[in-house]
């Protein structure tokens, strides 16, 4: 569904006759072509998962992290251009610490999402800036419970109970919709996210990938952290088993 924006797509400050800003749409394509990123809100927390495509066999496992801690209580998983994503994370961290030093309490996730979205949007307003080529899924746990937000390169931000961006997002979203998230704990959620990511990974087109996961839940004491290794391994094993089951049909 690619339309040619001839002439109207050269600058982010130009609208097309049918009311579109093509540069922003092209930025979104950068996100669409990246490894899948999934986030779900379970009843006791958030789980984030990333399909980290490995471009070189010489890369050290665990490097080039795609999930970043923004604050004690929140984390962000990045899709699209990695360097752009790093900027967004840096801004989010800065907003979070600044809020806390002024207001004396951890930044509410809703406020953080609004500030990040506002910043991303800012970069779509000037001709001398280009839009961010990355989208983020922000998960956090504050006084109002666990919350999940997604910020797109256009600067739009919505609150979700399940979100996915990147290559396998359509398939991932279908899988997420099947889950009964309100009854699920994060322990179970971790396994489900792993299954989804393994499931949407395209063996033919992409070679290897590394599964990166993090959570913020009651079990992690409402702190954002990498999913502990033993649970991660358990999830990977379950995901691989589920794949084999599917293949065996």
């Amino acid at each position, binding site marked *: 569904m690619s339309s040619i924006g001839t002439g109207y797509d050269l600058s982010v400050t130009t609208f097309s006759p049918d009311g579109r800003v093509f540069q922003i749409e092209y930025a979104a394509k950068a996100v669409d072509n990246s490894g899948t990123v999934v986030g779900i809100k379970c009843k006791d927390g958030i789980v984030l998962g990333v399909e980290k495509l490995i471009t070189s066999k010489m890369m050290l496992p665990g490097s080039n992290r795609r999930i970043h801690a923004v604050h004690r209580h929140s984390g962000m998983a990045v899709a699209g251009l990695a360097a752009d994503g790093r900027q967004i994370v840096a801004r989010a961290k800065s907003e979070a610490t600044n809020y806390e030093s*002024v*207001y*004396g309490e951890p930044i509410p996730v809703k406020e953080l999402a609004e500030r990040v979205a506002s910043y991303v949007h800012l970069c779509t307003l000037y001709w001398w800036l280009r839009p961010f080529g990355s989208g983020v899924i922000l998960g956090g746990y504050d006084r109002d419970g666990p919350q999940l937000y997604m910020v797109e390169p256009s600067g739009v931000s919505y609150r979700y109970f399940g979100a996915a961006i990147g290559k396998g997002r359509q398939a991932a979203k279908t899988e997420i919709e099947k889950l009964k998230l309100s009854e699920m704990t994060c322990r179970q959620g971790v396994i489900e996210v792993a299954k989804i990511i393994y499931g949407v990974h395209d063996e033919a087109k992409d070679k290897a990938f590394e599964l990166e996961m993090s959570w913020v839940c009651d079990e992690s004491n409402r702190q954002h952290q990498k999913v502990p290794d033993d649970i991660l391994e358990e999830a990977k094993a379950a995901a691989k088993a589920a794949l084999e089951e599917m293949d065996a049909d």
Partner: protein
Amino acid sequence: MDVSAGDLNAPHSMGTTIIGVTYDGGVVLGADSRTSTGMYVANRASDKITKLTDNVYMCRSGSAADSQIVSDYVRYFLHQHTIQLGQPSTVKVAANLVRLLSYNNKNMLQTGLIIGGWDKYEGGKIYGIPLGGTILEQPFAIGGSGSSYLYGFFDQAWKEGMTQEEAEQLVVKAVSLAIARDGASGGVVRTVTINSEGVTRKFYPGDKLSLWHEELEPQNSLLDILSTGSPEPMVS
């Protein structure tokens, strides 16, 4: 509460008594109503309990100008914060904003403040912010020149988990005791009670307060109470 004008020997005291007390379900803030400029009472019915938001109030002591300007700034910041958040600010946030102003401007300000309020996360809370800009969350807080006379009283009379009635009576009694002993405190007692249901202001006129040790009943003339045992002058 203003520092004495022209009287170089007058003590630099915070002419006030202010109190904040938590109880089971909310907080009670209390204050006297005397604003003094040296020995002159500039305002004998002032309101030292100022609203910051619908659910957070602040007791002011020290320089009247300084405490008013701080409350104005904080009210403005909190208003913006409430709009951004989409819900009422918490007492903690209000207190933090006050202490940032107090601390960062400590060289210019002279004001001791007590913040009290109710929010849905923590319930009733009291924060004391004395002169230098320290912030301390306390079950009760006292401040102003009159508070010197109340430390022992609260040590004995304060208890955890009071009812609203008990807390209000404690506050009125305490302010009244301080007024009796502190020359820079006087007038009426004002209280503000804040809980989940909202805010209630109460007023206790000075002549309706109980009399303490050695305090005289209001008289028309002191001659009426002079002891009859003294010798009559000029009896032939």
